[in-house]
């Protein structure tokens, strides 16, 4: 009888034993993955979001967040001040048109592009991570499209945020709703073109060199030198009374290209000498050249990555 009880107790303890030691790390060995594989389109989206986040330093070191965030703040600050002025003085319109804002702060956009475009592409080239991408489901076009779209989106956010601030401020100042909405829409179209154009130029220039420093300097040079030259020559042409020539000259720098476009098609006023407006014919050429440069940048990037670097 007592022996039976003991046996029962023993059996009971034995049964409880495994439950009594929960703090054991089991070596579970290698586990195979049999979940879903989402393929190319998902990989392309992942690369896009990683690059877009990277353009604002998200998912990177704290140090690399400083510059993009600072430039973002610098972009928005003038807009906030203008809104404050408009609201306080009860002015009848915003001091600056939606389409023209980006032209005013082009230096900030240029700095942002120069700091982030090399980060996006030179980094993969420099540390030779490109073969790792191409040994995965994505193709060359996926890589280029994802990087291009990410850079353009980052620029669109950068240039779009102040426009939204202006719009909200304008509505707070009880300016005409229809006018303002139309202005915002035109502004967004203009910065969309600007983002695509600048992203393309920035990426092509950065993809030429695996060295980040060269990339930064080259992007700044490509944006500022033509702008300076075009502005100077435009000034001379204008002083000599050759206004048509001054209009056409705007074709030769990225900033004046966008400036001319927004003046002709999006109801803006240009920063050309004396607010000069290119003719409508010139406007169509501006549009063609802009789209051509964007397509050309894409083609050049595709060419750049033709050798997978394996």
């Amino acid at each position: 009888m007592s022996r039976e009880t003991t046996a029962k107790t023993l059996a009971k303890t034995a049964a409880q034993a495994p439950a009594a030691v929960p703090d054991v790390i089991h070596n579970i060995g290698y586990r195979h993955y049999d979940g879903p594989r989402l393929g190319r389109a998902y990989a392309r989206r992942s690369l896009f979001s990683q690059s877009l986040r990277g353009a604002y330093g998200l998912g990177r070191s704290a140090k690399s967040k400083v510059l993009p965030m600072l430039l973002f703040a610098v972009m928005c600050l003038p807009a906030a001040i203008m809104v404050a002025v408009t609201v306080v003085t009860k002015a009848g319109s915003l001091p600056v048109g939606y389409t023209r804002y980006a032209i005013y702060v082009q230096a900030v956009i240029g700095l942002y592009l120069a700091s982030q475009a090399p980060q996006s592409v030179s980094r993969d080239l420099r540390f030779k991570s490109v073969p790792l991408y191409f040994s995965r489901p994505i193709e060359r076009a996926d890589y280029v499209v994802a990087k291009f779209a990410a850079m353009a989106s980052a620029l669109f956010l950068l240039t779009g945020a102040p426009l939204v601030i202006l719009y909200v401020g304008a509505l707070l100042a009880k300016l005409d709703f229809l006018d303002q909405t139309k202005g915002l829409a035109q502004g967004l179209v203009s910065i969309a073109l600007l983002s695509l154009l600048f992203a393309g130029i920035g990426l092509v220039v950065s993809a030429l060199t695996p060295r980040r420093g060269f990339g930064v300097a080259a992007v700044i040079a490509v944006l500022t030198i033509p702008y300076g030259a075009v502005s100077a020559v435009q000034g001379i042409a204008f002083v000599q009374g050759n206004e048509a020539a001054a209009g056409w000259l705007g074709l030769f720098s990225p900033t004046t290209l966008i400036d001319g476009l927004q003046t002709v098609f999006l109801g803006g006023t240009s920063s050309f000498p004396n607010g000069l407006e290119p003719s409508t014919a010139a406007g169509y050429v501006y549009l063609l050249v802009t789209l051509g440069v964007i397509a050309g940048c894409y083609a050049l990037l595709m060419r750049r990555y033709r050798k997978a670097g394996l």
Partner: protein
Amino acid sequence: MTVIVTESLSKRFPRVTALDRLSVDIAPGVTGLVGANGAGKSTLIKILLGLAPATEGTAHVLGMDVTAHGSTIRERVGYMPEHDCLPPDVSATEFVVHMARMSGLPPTAARERTADTLRHVGLYEERYRPIGGYSTGMKQRVKLAQALVHDPQLVFLDEPTNGLDPVGRDEMLALIRRIHTDFGISVLVTSHLLGELERTCDHVVVIDGGKLLRSSATDDFTQVTASLAVEVTDTDTCPDGTEALRAALSAAGAVVTSAAPGADGPAASGHLLHVEVSGEETYDLVRDTVAGLGIGLVRMEQQRHRIAEVFRDADAAAESSAAAAAAPTAAPAPAVSYAPQEGGAPDVA
């Protein structure tokens, strides 16, 4: 079932032929791909990943044609490049998670697989630190992890032991072995160091100049003609023990050479005898002969033939054929070169 099949695969560039009608069948397991620099190893991997079109011939990986299903193949295959490929400013975890997503794994699965894989390759707390501060050995592990994170069926490892110290090398080789035995993933590994492949591979493919030199199981390379190195002492009765043993063994019908096959330099000293092993009885014969002569046996060790001998044989064959081809034209040359020497002889005298 084979994981890789190529049929008369050729890749020609305007100036060089990287692959020349290469036909190989590679079975699951660990396969070594051996070849000198420029032998076509990288080109082969590139074609197998579907990244470069072959000039002619076909290649199938995991039963899929490389030209038609490149993307699907790459989803199921891992690749570890030879060169450094890691950005220094992110942590191993972040980097491998990103690479897992690039292979199509959903975000949560990517994180879980990354943690698992990094643990399997032997990276623990370091994985949260930026890669820039890692040692070469740790970087190699991260590179391996990114190739394994999506649980491929086959991995291509390009020179995985490059730059590692002997201990790191051993660990990496053990890891490669485990990839197949524990993880069940087939491996195609390239290396210049044949000794490494002998230890890890089931099968070795040797290519040279884009041509298949040999493809067979590692055992075939190393065991078929094993030999026995014997070193003996000299005694008063046998002043030259080595010579006496050689005579006795030869008399007993064993094949004896004094230099190791293919060995060179001081290693081939006269005190070592190499006896070709024809079976168990060879060991007995050596023991009995040594005992009969009354000399001391210093050592008796098994020596495997090395894969390197495949190259040496190939070189020798190439040289002899080249010599044969050159012989008729070269024949007059010695006559010319002897002439001045004959003329010069009196001076010396």
